[in-house]
């Protein structure tokens, strides 16, 4: 019992620390990705390749003056960012990053809590997250904030429906609500993942889920709640310093949550695309080794003066990571973690890719799309899946 409490506390601390670092660096990755899509270098001045930019941003946000306008509804104005970040971080507690592993003789899952209603828990936390944004918009007592808050709550209520229906279809196949069991049912190869799994491959559900996920997290092309050219900054116009940062972190934490959910529900979680017997355990080492060689090559033929010093260091780090992936004692937990992060990371990259590519929806198009197209398609998909599952079993 005591060991359980100690291990859970350690896990909670590790997950929190890693998540916070990821949130900070995700923003650096996004700025870099969008910069390269738009053919410019992006953050480059603070540290090598702008790697210390997130640190500088954190210092800037903490030390900024915390303004509270006199006309706001103070209790709700203060509660809103707290609510948003709490609900965003809550869902991470049920996301499994890997299978049950053994650490110093104790068996423990790479997950904070394996609830048998894990999927519903994530849905509940995300539906409570609407309050943070709606209340922020209302309590600010500002027309731009109010319109942003209204838009976002209407959008999130509307897109929650197709999202839930899209989630329900793979659940029919897997027959469980626990996120851990959900992945265990998809083991084997890529053909057992829910996205390709018979009797009815869930590609349609996956696409609906991803579209709804973009809307739920208020991302481009569904970022009308904070459309800066018409609403200043939307619901967080009146927020500054760490309160603004809370909304920012909540948005990125929600992105991580929905990407992990897509990975767990459709892409087989931490399962490798093909069995280890056919060499899937060598893939991470090969990828990192290739990255290391490329970095070393570019370090030797550097285009910029600074790169002659930074790129070889990166190359050696990548080669070191490749070596770690070959150690047999860490492979049991490192390989599942790699596949989970790779799949989640790919979906996160898709978020940024779309942001760098697509323009914004018009508001009536956005609502019409959710109710007149996405909802019926999700309903039909659920119906067909249900019939096929009943027919097969």
């Amino acid at each position, binding site marked *: 019992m005591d060991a359980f409490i100690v291990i859970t506390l350690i896990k909670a601390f590790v997950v929190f620390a890693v998540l916070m670092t990821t949130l900070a660096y995700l923003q650096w990755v996004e700025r870099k990705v969008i910069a390269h899509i738009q053919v410019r270098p992006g953050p480059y001045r603070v540290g090598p390749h702008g790697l210390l930019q997130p640190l500088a941003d954190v210092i800037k946000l903490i030390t900024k003056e915390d303004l509270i306008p006199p006309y706001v509804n103070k209790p709700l104005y203060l509660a809103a960012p707290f609510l948003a970040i709490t609900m965003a971080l809550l869902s991470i507690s049920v996301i499994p990053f890997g299978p049950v592993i053994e650490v110093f003789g104790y068996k423990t899952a790479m997950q904070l809590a394996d609830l048998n209603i894990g999927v*519903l828990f994530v849905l*509940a936390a995300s539906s409570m997250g609407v*309050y943070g944004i709606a209340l922020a918009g209302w309590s600010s007592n500002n027309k731009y904030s109010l319109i942003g808050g209204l838009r976002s709550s209407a959008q999130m*209520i509307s897109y929650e429906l197709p999202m839930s229906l899209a989630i329900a279809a793979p659940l029919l196949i897997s027959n469980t609500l626990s996120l851990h069991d959900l992945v265990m049912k998809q083991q084997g190869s890529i053909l057992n993942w829910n996205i390709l799994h018979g009797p009815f491959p869930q590609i349609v559900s996956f696409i609906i889920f991803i579209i709804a996920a973009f809307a739920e997290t208020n991302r481009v092309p569904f970022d009308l709640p904070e459309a800066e050219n018409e609403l200043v900054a939307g619901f967080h116009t009146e927020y500054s310093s760490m309160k603004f940062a809370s909304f920012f972190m909540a948005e990125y934490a929600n992105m991580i949550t929905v990407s992990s959910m897509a990975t767990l529900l459709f892409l087989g979680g931490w399962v490798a695309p093909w069995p280890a017997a056919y060499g899937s355990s060598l893939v991470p080492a090969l990828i990192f080794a290739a990255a290391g060689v490329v970095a070393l090559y570019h370090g030797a033929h550097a285009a910029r003066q600074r790169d002659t010093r930074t790129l070889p260091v990166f190359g050696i780090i990548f080669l070191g990571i490749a070596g770690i992936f070959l150690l047999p004692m860490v492979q049991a937990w490192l390989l599942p973690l790699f596949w989970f992060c790779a799949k989640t990371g790919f979906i996160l990259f898709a978020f940024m890719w779309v942001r760098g590519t697509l323009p914004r929806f018009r508001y009536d198009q956005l609502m019409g799309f959710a109710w007149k197209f996405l909802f019926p398609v999700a309903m039909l998909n659920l119906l067909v899946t249900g019939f096929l599952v009943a027919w097969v079993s």
Partner: protein
Amino acid sequence: MPITPDVILFVVFALIAVASAINVVVQTHPISSALSLVGVMGSLAILYLLLGAEFIAAAQVIVYAGAVMVLFIFVIMLLNAGTESKKGRSFMVQLLGVPLLVALLGLVAFFVQRIYYDTPRETVHFGGFTGGSAQDIGHALFTTYLLPFEVTSVLILIAIIGAVVLARKEME
């Protein structure tokens, strides 16, 4: 009754539920009242969870605290409803309010007392109920309670169609 963590949690969240419920009535601003109602729904969900009904708890949060109350708050925000005045109460309310409240609380206390002493204590204890998983609820809904379930879904369908008809009449 021994004081276990379950009992402490029950007392804490029962108190939060009652306090939020009183706050719904006391607050003059609609948004504050609606948020207090969210507090009631949330604490009820935790009470369900303590009793072992995890599916009901999740459904309570998703449907009531998540969907219904967000819609309430959305409408209040859309209409930009202001603070209500406390004046203009009828004479009956001022005269009979407090005695009726006392009478109601007395009745509730009386029945709680009776139920508590009439039933054996083993039936009500934390963790005693295990039929609250999604599988159990689904099984019960589609076997024992199939007719009520289907009748309810037809009722909801009628309500949806009615709402669409009314909204369309308004638009024309």
